[in-house]
Protein backbone atom coordinates (compact mmCIF):
# COMPACT_ATOMS: atom_id res chain seq x y z
CA UNK A 1 0.00 0.00 0.00
CA UNK A 2 1.42 3.37 -1.03
CA UNK A 3 1.53 5.98 1.67
CA UNK A 4 -0.56 9.11 1.04
CA UNK A 5 1.30 12.28 0.09
CA UNK A 6 -0.56 14.37 2.66
CA UNK A 7 -0.63 13.91 6.43
CA UNK A 8 -1.66 10.55 7.92
CA UNK A 9 -4.25 12.35 10.08
CA UNK A 10 -5.80 15.69 9.33
CA UNK A 11 -8.35 17.23 11.70
CA UNK A 12 -10.01 20.59 11.04
CA UNK A 13 -12.61 22.26 13.26
CA UNK A 14 -13.74 18.89 14.65
CA UNK A 15 -16.68 19.10 17.02
CA UNK A 16 -18.77 16.55 18.84
CA UNK A 17 -21.81 17.24 20.96
CA UNK A 18 -23.81 14.73 23.00
CA UNK A 19 -27.50 15.35 23.34
CA UNK A 20 -29.39 14.06 26.38
CA UNK A 21 -33.11 13.77 25.80
CA UNK A 22 -35.89 13.98 28.33
CA UNK A 23 -38.77 11.53 28.76
CA UNK A 24 -40.78 13.19 25.96
CA UNK A 25 -37.88 13.09 23.49
CA UNK A 26 -37.04 16.77 23.80
CA UNK A 27 -33.47 17.98 24.27
CA UNK A 28 -32.72 18.10 28.00
CA UNK A 29 -29.06 18.99 27.74
CA UNK A 30 -26.32 19.34 25.13
CA UNK A 31 -22.77 18.58 26.20
CA UNK A 32 -19.85 19.62 24.06
CA UNK A 33 -17.07 17.00 24.11
CA UNK A 34 -14.99 18.57 21.35
CA UNK A 35 -15.13 22.27 20.45
CA UNK A 36 -13.45 22.64 17.07
CA UNK A 37 -10.04 21.02 17.35
CA UNK A 38 -7.37 21.14 14.63
CA UNK A 39 -4.20 19.09 14.25
CA UNK A 40 -2.24 17.07 11.74
CA UNK A 41 -0.09 13.97 12.16
CA UNK A 42 2.62 13.33 9.58
CA UNK A 43 3.31 9.92 8.07
CA UNK A 44 5.62 7.91 10.32
CA UNK A 45 5.16 10.31 13.24
CA UNK A 46 4.53 9.23 16.83
CA UNK A 47 2.01 11.78 18.04
CA UNK A 48 0.71 12.10 21.59
CA UNK A 49 -2.67 13.30 22.78
CA UNK A 50 -2.74 14.07 26.49
CA UNK A 51 -5.33 15.58 28.77
CA UNK A 52 -7.31 15.00 31.95
CA UNK A 53 -10.27 12.61 32.14
CA UNK A 54 -13.21 13.90 30.14
CA UNK A 55 -11.04 16.28 28.11
CA UNK A 56 -12.04 14.72 24.78
CA UNK A 57 -9.19 12.26 24.06
CA UNK A 58 -11.36 9.17 23.73
CA UNK A 59 -14.00 11.05 21.75
CA UNK A 60 -11.28 12.16 19.33
CA UNK A 61 -9.97 8.60 18.95
CA UNK A 62 -13.48 7.22 18.44
CA UNK A 63 -14.15 9.72 15.68
CA UNK A 64 -10.81 9.08 13.99
CA UNK A 65 -11.36 5.32 14.11
CA UNK A 66 -14.88 5.76 12.61
CA UNK A 67 -16.68 4.51 15.73
CA UNK A 68 -18.40 7.82 16.38
CA UNK A 69 -19.82 10.39 13.96
CA UNK A 70 -18.59 13.97 14.44
CA UNK A 71 -21.23 16.67 14.68
CA UNK A 72 -19.07 19.20 12.83
CA UNK A 73 -15.73 19.79 11.15
CA UNK A 74 -13.62 17.51 9.04
CA UNK A 75 -11.34 14.55 9.82
CA UNK A 76 -9.28 12.64 7.28
CA UNK A 77 -7.32 9.46 7.88
CA UNK A 78 -4.71 8.58 5.25
CA UNK A 79 -6.53 11.04 2.99
CA UNK A 80 -9.91 9.35 3.54
CA UNK A 81 -13.05 10.91 5.02
CA UNK A 82 -14.13 9.46 8.40
CA UNK A 83 -17.79 9.97 7.48
CA UNK A 84 -17.75 8.31 4.06
CA UNK A 85 -14.81 5.93 3.75
CA UNK A 86 -15.42 3.82 6.87
CA UNK A 87 -14.34 0.40 5.65
CA UNK A 88 -11.27 1.58 3.74
CA UNK A 89 -10.10 3.48 6.82
CA UNK A 90 -10.78 0.54 9.15
CA UNK A 91 -8.83 -1.80 6.85
CA UNK A 92 -5.76 0.43 7.13
CA UNK A 93 -5.74 1.30 10.82
CA UNK A 94 -5.14 -0.71 13.99
CA UNK A 95 -6.63 0.15 17.39
CA UNK A 96 -5.35 -0.77 20.85
CA UNK A 97 -7.92 -0.08 23.54
CA UNK A 98 -6.53 0.30 27.02
CA UNK A 99 -7.52 -1.89 29.95
CA UNK A 100 -9.34 -5.20 29.87
CA UNK A 101 -11.71 -4.39 27.00
CA UNK A 102 -11.64 -5.82 23.51
CA UNK A 103 -10.67 -9.50 23.87
CA UNK A 104 -12.66 -12.74 24.07
CA UNK A 105 -11.47 -14.11 27.39
CA UNK A 106 -12.98 -17.59 27.15
CA UNK A 107 -10.93 -18.54 24.11
CA UNK A 108 -7.20 -18.63 23.41
CA UNK A 109 -4.91 -15.92 22.05
CA UNK A 110 -4.68 -17.83 18.77
CA UNK A 111 -8.50 -17.97 18.50
CA UNK A 112 -8.72 -14.23 19.16
CA UNK A 113 -6.11 -13.42 16.52
CA UNK A 114 -7.61 -15.84 13.99
CA UNK A 115 -11.04 -14.28 14.46
CA UNK A 116 -9.84 -10.71 14.07
CA UNK A 117 -7.58 -11.57 11.12
CA UNK A 118 -10.67 -12.98 9.37
CA UNK A 119 -12.74 -9.91 10.22
CA UNK A 120 -9.98 -7.73 8.79
CA UNK A 121 -9.83 -9.83 5.64
CA UNK A 122 -6.32 -11.18 6.06
CA UNK A 123 -5.75 -13.99 3.58
CA UNK A 124 -5.90 -17.33 5.46
CA UNK A 125 -2.50 -18.50 4.18
CA UNK A 126 -0.94 -15.24 5.40
CA UNK A 127 -2.73 -15.42 8.77
CA UNK A 128 -1.34 -18.92 9.38
CA UNK A 129 2.20 -17.49 9.22
CA UNK A 130 1.56 -14.04 10.65
CA UNK A 131 -0.28 -15.08 13.84
CA UNK A 132 2.59 -17.19 15.28
CA UNK A 133 5.04 -14.44 14.26
CA UNK A 134 3.01 -11.81 16.11
CA UNK A 135 2.70 -14.00 19.19
CA UNK A 136 6.48 -14.37 19.12
CA UNK A 137 6.91 -10.60 18.84
CA UNK A 138 4.67 -9.91 21.85
CA UNK A 139 6.20 -12.77 23.84
CA UNK A 140 3.09 -14.96 24.11
CA UNK A 141 4.15 -17.95 22.00
CA UNK A 142 4.39 -20.33 24.93
CA UNK A 143 0.91 -19.38 26.22
CA UNK A 144 -0.75 -19.08 22.81
CA UNK A 145 -3.26 -21.91 23.31
CA UNK A 146 -4.30 -20.88 26.83
CA UNK A 147 -7.58 -19.13 27.50
CA UNK A 148 -7.09 -15.37 27.70
CA UNK A 149 -8.93 -15.24 31.04
CA UNK A 150 -5.84 -16.83 32.60
CA UNK A 151 -3.56 -14.04 31.34
CA UNK A 152 -2.18 -11.24 33.48
CA UNK A 153 -3.13 -7.69 32.58
CA UNK A 154 0.24 -7.12 30.92
CA UNK A 155 -0.15 -10.24 28.77
CA UNK A 156 -3.62 -9.12 27.72
CA UNK A 157 -2.24 -5.76 26.72
CA UNK A 158 0.47 -7.43 24.63
CA UNK A 159 -2.22 -9.51 22.96
CA UNK A 160 -4.11 -6.28 22.25
CA UNK A 161 -1.08 -5.04 20.37
CA UNK A 162 -0.81 -8.28 18.38
CA UNK A 163 -4.51 -7.98 17.56
CA UNK A 164 -4.08 -4.42 16.32
CA UNK A 165 -1.20 -5.52 14.06
CA UNK A 166 -2.78 -8.67 12.66
CA UNK A 167 -3.76 -6.98 9.37
CA UNK A 168 -0.53 -5.00 9.03
CA UNK A 169 -2.01 -1.48 9.45
CA UNK A 170 -0.27 1.71 8.36
CA UNK A 171 -1.63 3.80 11.23
CA UNK A 172 -2.07 2.65 14.83
CA UNK A 173 -4.18 4.23 17.57
CA UNK A 174 -2.99 3.41 21.08
CA UNK A 175 -5.56 4.46 23.66
CA UNK A 176 -3.81 4.43 27.06
CA UNK A 177 -1.92 1.21 26.30
CA UNK A 178 -0.03 1.08 29.61
CA UNK A 179 -2.89 1.92 31.96
CA UNK A 180 -2.92 -0.32 35.02
CA UNK A 181 0.27 -2.20 34.09
CA UNK A 182 3.15 -2.88 36.46
CA UNK A 183 6.43 -1.06 35.63
CA UNK A 184 7.88 -4.10 33.79
CA UNK A 185 4.75 -4.62 31.71
CA UNK A 186 4.54 -0.92 30.86
CA UNK A 187 8.21 -0.90 29.80
CA UNK A 188 7.57 -3.88 27.46
CA UNK A 189 4.70 -2.03 25.82
CA UNK A 190 6.78 1.13 25.42
CA UNK A 191 9.53 -0.91 23.76
CA UNK A 192 6.99 -2.35 21.34
CA UNK A 193 5.74 1.14 20.53
CA UNK A 194 9.33 2.21 19.77
CA UNK A 195 9.76 -0.82 17.49
CA UNK A 196 6.58 0.04 15.61
CA UNK A 197 7.79 3.59 15.14
CA UNK A 198 11.12 2.26 13.87
CA UNK A 199 9.20 0.24 11.28
CA UNK A 200 7.71 3.46 9.94
CA UNK A 201 4.21 3.07 11.35
CA UNK A 202 2.30 6.23 12.16
CA UNK A 203 1.11 6.18 15.77
CA UNK A 204 -1.37 8.26 17.74
CA UNK A 205 -0.92 7.63 21.46
CA UNK A 206 -3.07 8.80 24.34
CA UNK A 207 -1.71 8.46 27.84
CA UNK A 208 -2.07 9.80 31.35
CA UNK A 209 1.64 9.33 32.04
CA UNK A 210 3.61 12.43 31.16
CA UNK A 211 7.02 10.77 31.27
CA UNK A 212 5.69 8.21 28.78
CA UNK A 213 4.49 10.89 26.38
CA UNK A 214 7.79 12.76 26.79
CA UNK A 215 9.82 9.60 26.22
CA UNK A 216 7.94 8.36 23.17
CA UNK A 217 6.25 11.18 21.30
CA UNK A 218 7.73 13.50 18.71
CA UNK A 219 4.91 16.00 19.15
CA UNK A 220 2.19 16.27 21.74
CA UNK A 221 -1.22 17.92 21.72
CA UNK A 222 -2.62 18.88 25.11
CA UNK A 223 -6.39 18.73 25.14
CA UNK A 224 -8.53 20.28 27.86
CA UNK A 225 -12.30 20.79 27.99
CA UNK A 226 -12.66 19.77 24.34
CA UNK A 227 -10.03 22.20 23.04
CA UNK A 228 -6.38 21.80 22.10
CA UNK A 229 -4.58 24.19 24.42
CA UNK A 230 -1.04 23.46 23.17
CA UNK A 231 0.63 21.47 20.41
CA UNK A 232 4.38 21.18 20.15
CA UNK A 233 7.43 19.01 20.74
CA UNK A 234 7.97 17.86 24.35
CA UNK A 235 10.95 20.20 24.75
CA UNK A 236 9.01 23.22 23.43
CA UNK A 237 6.11 22.42 25.73
CA UNK A 238 8.54 22.33 28.65
CA UNK A 239 9.88 25.72 27.54
CA UNK A 240 6.46 27.16 28.35
CA UNK A 241 7.31 26.77 32.03
CA UNK A 242 10.96 27.88 31.87
CA UNK A 243 10.03 30.78 34.17
CA UNK A 244 9.68 28.41 37.08
CA UNK A 245 11.83 25.83 38.78
CA UNK A 246 10.68 22.93 40.89
CA UNK A 247 11.63 22.13 44.47
CA UNK A 248 11.19 18.40 44.85
CA UNK A 249 10.89 17.25 48.46
CA UNK A 250 10.98 13.74 49.81
CA UNK A 251 9.34 13.87 53.21
CA UNK A 252 8.44 11.64 56.11
CA UNK A 253 5.07 12.01 57.87
CA UNK A 254 4.04 15.09 55.89
CA UNK A 255 0.27 15.57 55.66
CA UNK A 256 -2.22 17.47 53.54
CA UNK A 257 -1.98 20.34 56.05
CA UNK A 258 1.68 20.84 55.07
CA UNK A 259 0.74 20.83 51.38
CA UNK A 260 -1.94 23.46 52.05
CA UNK A 261 0.57 25.54 54.01
CA UNK A 262 2.99 25.38 51.07
CA UNK A 263 0.25 26.48 48.67
CA UNK A 264 -0.32 29.59 50.78
CA UNK A 265 3.33 30.70 50.60
CA UNK A 266 4.03 33.74 48.42
CA UNK A 267 5.56 32.98 44.98
CA UNK A 268 4.35 29.39 44.99
CA UNK A 269 2.72 28.71 41.63
CA UNK A 270 1.57 25.15 42.22
CA UNK A 271 2.10 22.24 44.62
CA UNK A 272 1.69 18.63 43.48
CA UNK A 273 1.88 15.98 46.18
CA UNK A 274 1.91 12.20 46.34
CA UNK A 275 1.10 11.42 49.97
CA UNK A 276 0.14 7.77 49.54
CA UNK A 277 3.55 6.20 50.15
CA UNK A 278 5.48 5.93 53.42
CA UNK A 279 7.82 8.60 52.06
CA UNK A 280 5.92 11.40 50.38
CA UNK A 281 6.93 13.29 47.24
CA UNK A 282 5.99 16.96 47.05
CA UNK A 283 6.78 19.17 44.05
CA UNK A 284 6.65 22.92 44.59
CA UNK A 285 6.67 25.09 41.45
CA UNK A 286 8.11 28.55 42.05
CA UNK A 287 9.96 31.29 40.16
CA UNK A 288 12.23 31.79 43.21
CA UNK A 289 14.01 28.42 43.03
CA UNK A 290 16.32 27.71 46.00
CA UNK A 291 15.44 31.10 47.58
CA UNK A 292 12.11 29.65 48.66
CA UNK A 293 13.70 26.76 50.56
CA UNK A 294 13.87 28.49 54.01
CA UNK A 295 10.12 29.17 53.90
CA UNK A 296 9.41 25.60 52.72
CA UNK A 297 11.39 24.24 55.66
CA UNK A 298 9.83 26.65 58.14
CA UNK A 299 6.31 25.56 57.16
CA UNK A 300 7.08 21.96 58.09
CA UNK A 301 4.88 20.84 61.02
CA UNK A 302 6.29 19.20 64.12
CA UNK A 303 6.99 15.49 63.69
CA UNK A 304 7.48 15.69 59.93
CA UNK A 305 10.91 15.56 58.32
CA UNK A 306 12.39 16.49 54.98
CA UNK A 307 14.57 13.55 53.90
CA UNK A 308 15.78 15.02 50.65
CA UNK A 309 15.31 18.22 48.63
CA UNK A 310 16.32 18.94 45.06
CA UNK A 311 15.95 21.91 42.75
CA UNK A 312 14.85 20.59 39.35
CA UNK A 313 14.10 21.83 35.88
CA UNK A 314 10.38 21.76 35.10
CA UNK A 315 9.13 18.60 33.42
CA UNK A 316 6.43 18.00 30.86
CA UNK A 317 4.07 17.29 33.74
CA UNK A 318 4.67 20.79 35.12
CA UNK A 319 3.91 22.27 31.72
CA UNK A 320 0.86 20.05 31.37
CA UNK A 321 -0.53 21.07 34.74
CA UNK A 322 -0.16 24.74 33.90
CA UNK A 323 -1.84 24.25 30.52
CA UNK A 324 -4.84 22.28 31.73
CA UNK A 325 -5.42 24.51 34.75
CA UNK A 326 -5.32 27.76 32.80
Amino acid at each position, binding site marked *: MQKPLGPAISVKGLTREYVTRNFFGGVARTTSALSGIDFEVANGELFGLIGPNGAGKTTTIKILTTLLTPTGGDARILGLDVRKDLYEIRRRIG*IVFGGERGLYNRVSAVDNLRYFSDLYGVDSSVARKRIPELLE*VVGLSDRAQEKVEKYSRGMKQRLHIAKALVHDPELIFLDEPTIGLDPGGARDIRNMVRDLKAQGKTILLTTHYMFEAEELCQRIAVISKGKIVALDTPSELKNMVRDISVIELRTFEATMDYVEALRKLPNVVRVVADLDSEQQTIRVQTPLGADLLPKVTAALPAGARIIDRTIKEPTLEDAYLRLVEE
Partner: protein
Amino acid sequence: MHELTPGKQTQGRVGRVIQVLRASVFLTSKLFFADPQWLIPNIIAPFIFTLVAFFLFSGQTSGSSFLLYLVLGSGLMGMWGTTIYASANSIGFDRWNGTMESTLAAPIPLSWIALGRVLFNTLQGVLNAVFILVIGLVWFRVGFTLVNPPAFFFASIMTFLSLSAFGLLMTTILLLSRKGGFITNSMEIPVYIATGTMFPVILLPVVYLPFAFMLAPTWGIEAIRLAALPGYVGLPTTYTVDMTIMVAETFAYLALAFFLFKRVEAYAKKMGTLEEY
Protein backbone atom coordinates in the same frame (compact mmCIF):
# COMPACT_ATOMS: atom_id res chain seq x y z
CA MET B 1 10.98 -6.37 15.97
CA HIS B 2 11.06 -9.54 13.88
CA GLU B 3 10.32 -9.41 10.18
CA LEU B 4 6.61 -10.16 9.80
CA THR B 5 4.79 -11.70 6.84
CA PRO B 6 3.02 -8.82 5.00
CA GLY B 7 -0.73 -8.76 5.70
CA LYS B 8 -2.16 -9.65 2.25
CA GLN B 9 -5.93 -9.21 2.05
CA THR B 10 -8.55 -11.69 0.85
CA GLN B 11 -9.85 -10.65 -2.56
CA GLY B 12 -13.46 -10.47 -3.73
CA ARG B 13 -16.69 -9.58 -1.92
CA VAL B 14 -18.05 -13.13 -1.83
CA GLY B 15 -14.74 -14.42 -0.44
CA ARG B 16 -14.82 -11.74 2.27
CA VAL B 17 -18.40 -12.55 3.27
CA ILE B 18 -17.66 -16.29 3.50
CA GLN B 19 -14.54 -15.54 5.53
CA VAL B 20 -16.48 -13.38 8.00
CA LEU B 21 -19.38 -15.84 8.32
CA ARG B 22 -16.94 -18.69 8.93
CA ALA B 23 -15.02 -16.67 11.54
CA SER B 24 -18.18 -15.60 13.29
CA VAL B 25 -19.64 -19.14 13.40
CA PHE B 26 -16.29 -20.53 14.58
CA LEU B 27 -15.84 -18.01 17.40
CA THR B 28 -19.46 -18.27 18.56
CA SER B 29 -19.17 -22.07 18.74
CA LYS B 30 -15.92 -21.82 20.71
CA LEU B 31 -17.48 -19.38 23.18
CA PHE B 32 -20.60 -21.53 23.43
CA PHE B 33 -18.81 -24.76 24.32
CA ALA B 34 -16.36 -22.93 26.61
CA ASP B 35 -19.26 -22.18 28.96
CA PRO B 36 -20.57 -25.33 30.69
CA GLN B 37 -23.99 -23.68 30.98
CA TRP B 38 -24.69 -24.71 27.37
CA LEU B 39 -26.07 -27.95 28.82
CA ILE B 40 -29.01 -26.14 30.44
CA PRO B 41 -30.79 -24.70 27.36
CA ASN B 42 -29.76 -27.51 25.04
CA ILE B 43 -30.09 -30.70 27.02
CA ILE B 44 -31.82 -30.13 30.35
CA ALA B 45 -34.53 -27.63 29.29
CA PRO B 46 -35.65 -29.64 26.22
CA PHE B 47 -35.78 -32.77 28.34
CA ILE B 48 -38.16 -31.07 30.80
CA PHE B 49 -40.17 -29.52 27.93
CA THR B 50 -40.69 -32.86 26.30
CA LEU B 51 -41.55 -34.66 29.50
CA VAL B 52 -44.22 -32.09 30.38
CA ALA B 53 -45.69 -32.17 26.87
CA PHE B 54 -45.84 -35.97 26.81
CA PHE B 55 -47.42 -36.32 30.23
CA LEU B 56 -49.95 -33.63 29.32
CA PHE B 57 -51.05 -35.14 26.04
CA SER B 58 -50.08 -38.78 25.81
CA GLY B 59 -52.89 -40.06 28.04
CA GLN B 60 -55.53 -38.26 26.01
CA THR B 61 -54.88 -39.69 22.62
CA SER B 62 -53.54 -42.70 20.87
CA GLY B 63 -51.48 -43.27 17.79
CA SER B 64 -47.87 -42.53 17.01
CA SER B 65 -48.91 -39.79 14.55
CA PHE B 66 -50.04 -37.49 17.34
CA LEU B 67 -46.94 -38.22 19.38
CA LEU B 68 -44.77 -37.35 16.41
CA TYR B 69 -46.78 -34.13 16.07
CA LEU B 70 -45.94 -33.44 19.67
CA VAL B 71 -42.25 -34.22 19.25
CA LEU B 72 -41.96 -32.00 16.19
CA GLY B 73 -43.77 -29.19 17.98
CA SER B 74 -41.58 -29.46 21.07
CA GLY B 75 -38.48 -29.56 18.88
CA LEU B 76 -39.48 -26.42 17.05
CA MET B 77 -40.31 -24.69 20.32
CA GLY B 78 -36.86 -25.53 21.61
CA MET B 79 -35.31 -24.37 18.37
CA TRP B 80 -37.17 -21.07 18.42
CA GLY B 81 -36.48 -20.45 22.09
CA THR B 82 -32.75 -21.01 21.66
CA THR B 83 -32.64 -18.90 18.51
CA ILE B 84 -34.30 -15.86 20.01
CA TYR B 85 -32.49 -16.10 23.33
CA ALA B 86 -29.07 -16.56 21.79
CA SER B 87 -29.63 -14.04 18.98
CA ALA B 88 -30.65 -11.43 21.47
CA ASN B 89 -27.51 -12.14 23.43
CA SER B 90 -25.11 -12.35 20.51
CA ILE B 91 -24.68 -8.57 20.39
CA GLY B 92 -25.50 -8.07 24.06
CA PHE B 93 -22.60 -10.38 24.87
CA ASP B 94 -20.19 -8.04 23.07
CA ARG B 95 -21.52 -5.07 24.99
CA TRP B 96 -21.10 -6.93 28.27
CA ASN B 97 -17.73 -8.43 27.31
CA GLY B 98 -16.26 -5.10 26.17
CA THR B 99 -15.67 -6.37 22.62
CA MET B 100 -18.30 -4.20 20.95
CA GLU B 101 -15.81 -1.55 19.83
CA SER B 102 -13.35 -4.13 18.50
CA THR B 103 -16.12 -5.84 16.54
CA LEU B 104 -17.50 -2.59 15.18
CA ALA B 105 -14.05 -1.38 14.20
CA ALA B 106 -13.70 -4.22 11.68
CA PRO B 107 -13.86 -3.29 7.99
CA ILE B 108 -17.05 -5.25 7.27
CA PRO B 109 -20.73 -4.46 7.92
CA LEU B 110 -21.78 -5.64 11.37
CA SER B 111 -24.73 -7.47 9.81
CA TRP B 112 -22.42 -10.15 8.36
CA ILE B 113 -20.75 -10.73 11.72
CA ALA B 114 -24.17 -10.92 13.40
CA LEU B 115 -25.48 -13.30 10.73
CA GLY B 116 -22.65 -15.74 11.46
CA ARG B 117 -23.51 -15.63 15.16
CA VAL B 118 -27.22 -16.09 14.54
CA LEU B 119 -26.51 -19.04 12.22
CA PHE B 120 -24.60 -20.81 14.95
CA ASN B 121 -27.23 -19.89 17.53
CA THR B 122 -29.94 -21.40 15.33
CA LEU B 123 -27.75 -24.45 14.94
CA GLN B 124 -27.81 -24.73 18.73
CA GLY B 125 -31.58 -24.80 18.36
CA VAL B 126 -31.25 -27.70 15.91
CA LEU B 127 -29.17 -29.54 18.50
CA ASN B 128 -31.95 -28.85 20.96
CA ALA B 129 -34.63 -30.11 18.53
CA VAL B 130 -32.64 -33.24 17.71
CA PHE B 131 -32.32 -33.99 21.40
CA ILE B 132 -36.09 -33.69 21.86
CA LEU B 133 -36.60 -36.01 18.90
CA VAL B 134 -34.21 -38.54 20.42
CA ILE B 135 -36.09 -38.43 23.75
CA GLY B 136 -39.35 -39.02 21.89
CA LEU B 137 -37.96 -41.88 19.82
CA VAL B 138 -36.08 -43.68 22.57
CA TRP B 139 -37.97 -42.95 25.77
CA PHE B 140 -41.54 -42.63 24.51
CA ARG B 141 -41.06 -44.97 21.55
CA VAL B 142 -42.58 -42.55 19.05
CA GLY B 143 -42.58 -44.02 15.55
CA PHE B 144 -40.53 -41.93 13.14
CA THR B 145 -42.16 -42.94 9.87
CA LEU B 146 -42.28 -39.93 7.59
CA VAL B 147 -44.72 -39.41 4.70
CA ASN B 148 -42.08 -37.83 2.50
CA PRO B 149 -38.55 -37.87 4.00
CA PRO B 150 -36.83 -35.63 1.36
CA ALA B 151 -39.62 -33.03 1.67
CA PHE B 152 -39.36 -33.25 5.47
CA PHE B 153 -35.60 -32.62 5.48
CA PHE B 154 -35.86 -29.81 2.93
CA ALA B 155 -38.60 -28.10 4.97
CA SER B 156 -36.53 -28.55 8.14
CA ILE B 157 -33.47 -26.91 6.58
CA MET B 158 -35.52 -24.03 5.20
CA THR B 159 -37.22 -23.54 8.56
CA PHE B 160 -33.77 -23.43 10.16
CA LEU B 161 -32.79 -20.66 7.72
CA SER B 162 -36.03 -18.76 8.28
CA LEU B 163 -35.44 -18.86 12.04
CA SER B 164 -31.93 -17.50 11.47
CA ALA B 165 -33.31 -14.66 9.37
CA PHE B 166 -35.85 -13.84 12.06
CA GLY B 167 -33.11 -14.01 14.70
CA LEU B 168 -31.05 -11.50 12.68
CA LEU B 169 -34.01 -9.17 12.59
CA MET B 170 -34.29 -9.44 16.37
CA THR B 171 -30.58 -8.68 16.74
CA THR B 172 -31.06 -5.22 15.23
CA ILE B 173 -33.23 -4.31 18.23
CA LEU B 174 -30.36 -5.20 20.56
CA LEU B 175 -27.97 -3.14 18.51
CA LEU B 176 -30.13 -0.09 18.96
CA SER B 177 -30.49 -0.32 22.69
CA ARG B 178 -29.06 -2.21 25.63
CA LYS B 179 -32.66 -2.53 26.83
CA GLY B 180 -33.61 -4.45 23.71
CA GLY B 181 -33.35 -7.77 25.57
CA PHE B 182 -36.69 -6.99 27.16
CA ILE B 183 -38.39 -6.84 23.75
CA THR B 184 -36.76 -9.96 22.32
CA ASN B 185 -37.41 -11.98 25.48
CA SER B 186 -41.06 -10.95 25.45
CA MET B 187 -41.34 -12.28 21.88
CA GLU B 188 -40.68 -15.88 22.94
CA ILE B 189 -44.08 -17.02 24.22
CA PRO B 190 -46.29 -15.11 21.70
CA VAL B 191 -44.32 -16.66 18.86
CA TYR B 192 -44.69 -20.16 20.37
CA ILE B 193 -48.43 -19.62 20.26
CA ALA B 194 -48.65 -17.78 16.95
CA THR B 195 -46.57 -20.27 14.99
CA GLY B 196 -48.64 -23.22 16.18
CA THR B 197 -45.83 -25.30 17.59
CA MET B 198 -48.13 -27.21 19.96
CA PHE B 199 -51.47 -26.95 18.18
CA PRO B 200 -52.67 -26.13 14.65
CA VAL B 201 -52.48 -22.42 14.00
CA ILE B 202 -55.98 -22.50 12.54
CA LEU B 203 -57.32 -22.86 16.08
CA LEU B 204 -56.15 -19.34 16.92
CA PRO B 205 -58.73 -16.52 17.07
CA VAL B 206 -59.03 -14.82 13.68
CA VAL B 207 -57.50 -11.56 14.96
CA TYR B 208 -54.22 -13.34 15.68
CA LEU B 209 -53.95 -15.01 12.30
CA PRO B 210 -52.38 -12.05 10.40
CA PHE B 211 -49.56 -12.00 12.98
CA ALA B 212 -49.17 -15.78 12.71
CA PHE B 213 -49.05 -15.59 8.91
CA MET B 214 -46.31 -12.94 9.02
CA LEU B 215 -44.04 -15.38 10.84
CA ALA B 216 -42.09 -17.59 8.45
CA PRO B 217 -41.78 -20.43 11.03
CA THR B 218 -45.60 -20.78 10.93
CA TRP B 219 -45.34 -21.92 7.30
CA GLY B 220 -42.24 -23.96 8.00
CA ILE B 221 -43.98 -25.91 10.74
CA GLU B 222 -46.96 -26.52 8.46
CA ALA B 223 -44.67 -27.80 5.69
CA ILE B 224 -42.75 -30.04 8.11
CA ARG B 225 -45.98 -31.57 9.44
CA LEU B 226 -47.38 -32.11 5.97
CA ALA B 227 -44.18 -33.91 4.98
CA ALA B 228 -44.01 -35.96 8.19
CA LEU B 229 -47.49 -36.83 9.41
CA PRO B 230 -49.93 -39.04 7.51
CA GLY B 231 -53.35 -37.41 7.11
CA TYR B 232 -52.27 -34.15 8.72
CA VAL B 233 -54.91 -31.43 8.49
CA GLY B 234 -53.75 -27.91 9.19
CA LEU B 235 -54.07 -24.76 7.12
CA PRO B 236 -55.87 -25.13 3.79
CA THR B 237 -52.58 -24.91 1.87
CA THR B 238 -50.23 -27.34 0.15
CA TYR B 239 -46.61 -28.12 0.96
CA THR B 240 -45.47 -26.05 -2.04
CA VAL B 241 -47.53 -23.03 -1.02
CA ASP B 242 -46.24 -23.22 2.57
CA MET B 243 -42.65 -23.43 1.38
CA THR B 244 -43.05 -20.59 -1.12
CA ILE B 245 -44.52 -18.25 1.50
CA MET B 246 -41.83 -19.22 4.00
CA VAL B 247 -38.98 -18.55 1.53
CA ALA B 248 -40.54 -15.23 0.49
CA GLU B 249 -40.92 -14.13 4.12
CA THR B 250 -37.37 -15.26 4.92
CA PHE B 251 -36.01 -13.05 2.14
CA ALA B 252 -38.17 -10.19 3.40
CA TYR B 253 -36.72 -10.65 6.91
CA LEU B 254 -33.18 -10.66 5.54
CA ALA B 255 -33.75 -7.56 3.42
CA LEU B 256 -35.34 -5.74 6.36
CA ALA B 257 -32.60 -6.91 8.76
CA PHE B 258 -29.76 -5.70 6.49
CA PHE B 259 -31.53 -2.38 5.94
CA LEU B 260 -32.12 -1.92 9.67
CA PHE B 261 -28.54 -2.88 10.52
CA LYS B 262 -27.27 -0.12 8.29
CA ARG B 263 -29.67 2.45 9.70
CA VAL B 264 -29.31 1.39 13.32
CA GLU B 265 -25.50 1.25 13.16
CA ALA B 266 -25.42 4.79 11.73
CA TYR B 267 -27.90 6.01 14.34
CA ALA B 268 -26.03 4.42 17.25
CA LYS B 269 -22.75 5.91 16.01
CA LYS B 270 -24.42 9.31 15.85
CA MET B 271 -25.82 8.97 19.35
CA GLY B 272 -22.65 7.37 20.79
CA THR B 273 -24.52 4.44 22.38
CA LEU B 274 -22.85 1.49 20.65
CA GLU B 275 -20.61 0.22 23.41
CA GLU B 276 -22.74 1.24 26.38
CA TYR B 277 -23.86 -1.55 28.64
